[in-house]
């Protein structure tokens, strides 16, 4: 399940947020602290998670302390489902 979430979100992030469809993101790549997903796109990421998995991530949680990698994000989603 977790692998599916990671693959799905990785795909949406590279196509819709980064607009670099050829890019690959590893499950342990840092998304937030590296600046890969900039602050203007964090809200998109939280809306994606909410729309696709029905999991709410509060805006106060949109930082590297809550999750920084796809792996961490996937476990957060699973824990809240």
């Amino acid at each position, binding site marked *: 399940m977790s692998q599916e979430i990671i693959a799905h979100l990785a795909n949406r992030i590279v196509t819709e947020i980064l607009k670099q469809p050829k890019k690959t993101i590893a499950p342990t790549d840092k998304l937030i602290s590296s600046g890969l997903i900039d*602050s203007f796109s964090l809200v998109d990421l939280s809306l994606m998670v909410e729309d696709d998995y029905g999991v709410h991530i509060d805006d*106060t949680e949109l930082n590297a302390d809550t999750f920084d990698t796809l792996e961490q994000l996937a476990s957060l989603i699973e824990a809240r489902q």
Partner: protein
Amino acid sequence: MTTFPERLKQAYETQPDFTILTLLHAGQEDLSLTYRDLIEGSVGYASTYASLGIQPGEVVILILEHGRDLVFAFWGAILHGAIPAIMPFLTEKLLPERYRADLAALVAVTQPAAIVTYPEFEVEIRPALKPDDSVRHVILSTLVDAPHKPDFASLGGFNRHANQTVLLQHSSGTTGLQKGVALSHQAVFNQLGNLRKALQQTENDVLVSWLPLYHDMGLIAGFLLPILSGIHLVLMSPFDWVRAPYRLLQAVSKYRGTLTWLPNFAYYFCAQKIRDRQLEGVDLSSWRAVINCSEPVRDDGQHAFAEKFAPYGFHKEALSVSYAMAENVFAVTQTPMGAPLILDEIDREALQTQNLAIPAIDGKASVRMVSCGPAIPNVELRIVNPENETLPDRSIGEVAVRSNCMLNEYYHRPDATEKLMIPGGWYLTGDFGYLVAGELYITGRKKDLIIVGGKNIYPQDLEILAMEVEGVHPGRVSAFGVFDESKGTEDVVIVAEVESEDSAEREKIEENIRAVITRGSAVALRNVYLVGPGWMVKTSSGKNARLANRDKYLKESGDSATI
């Protein structure tokens, strides 16, 4: 003629219990401050500056995030007579070394006597300082005197004169930080007086803002205007807004906000990223002016905004536009309150080839322009040609401004200050536009400056970074902005010359350019476009022809952006 300290003293004596500022922090209780709280907290900073030997007239750099410390440190500097300059805080994205290089550049030009920051941030900035530079103290926010009652007679700020510099305003990046706009008390008060009339401002207004205070729109409109005019300011953090734009609308509803300034992209951002469930119970009927300012204005984002929020009581007459710049303290023009936006559909070909804004012709391509309104009181406008001769209506030329609220100088930059004015006391803005019956329309920029989400980005800063990447031909990099219609703002593109034909190596170069730009400037690139030798357009004197490179890029890359 009055000064900021005199104004604060008057407020302290006549309306100490008036709630002048409410600070919002996501996940925390709102913090409301009366004039008494604001001034007594600031006096704590003022006495600290005095005890450390900071002299009135010396510059103090504030490196603090949204919150009470920033507010007190700023007004404390004013009460002490020191000149505050707010530097953006380090973000996660930006490399600390890059940030320190920018800070060192700021220190070298501005010659500050002190820097104020948090104890945990001291370690980040110390390495930027040298033993022989001007900074005598790094003042930690935790070691500042507690708030206390003012002894106005002893405060250094009361010996300052209205025409002396009260604060510095910088734009971002290495280049921007080296050119501080120095504003006098009088110029700021004149601007606020002019704007008060244009906005039909009353003491019942409530200003709601998320704009950062290191930005001129945030500092002047979103901070000084309310506090000096005595209207309630509800201030949220840009950090919170960008993660949860709905909080702005909740704040307007909760505090019955009437006035807000937004950069153009923010209308799109709010319309696209706020969900109805986040607006339960929100009432926007008090919002009388939401003013689009600080980047090129498009009407579609404003309409999307009005439509999206109409069910929550938003009146579309509240949509408003202003053209502003730090050199004029702030606003140059302002559309009349409550009036619908004025649109001007003009012929695209005449705009591009003849510098004329003629009304659109049926069946021919056109461009829809949005009026920025007429000049505010005590500000004059002209459109001039390169010989500085006034052009008639609908002729496109450079916008020239003359007013009672111009800057004093570019701080410690006599070279730049000398070039400021043309004969007659007119300032050339570097923006192109045209007038129709006193209404100003902006069509473009003379400078290669890029404006991303209202923030000025200097292309040369980005080019220097990209040239560090191995495999990129030194001197053959061009950075420019292209307009993204869906976001309502500019995106940045880098064109770089490389010799390698190997696709794996080219991918690596592209990746490295993206990384170095992100970490070195906090700009997320739209595209890195690698070209071979001979592609790059140069001017006749061999300089980077960014705008020509942009046109060539848009023609051949298939990028859907526009100019």
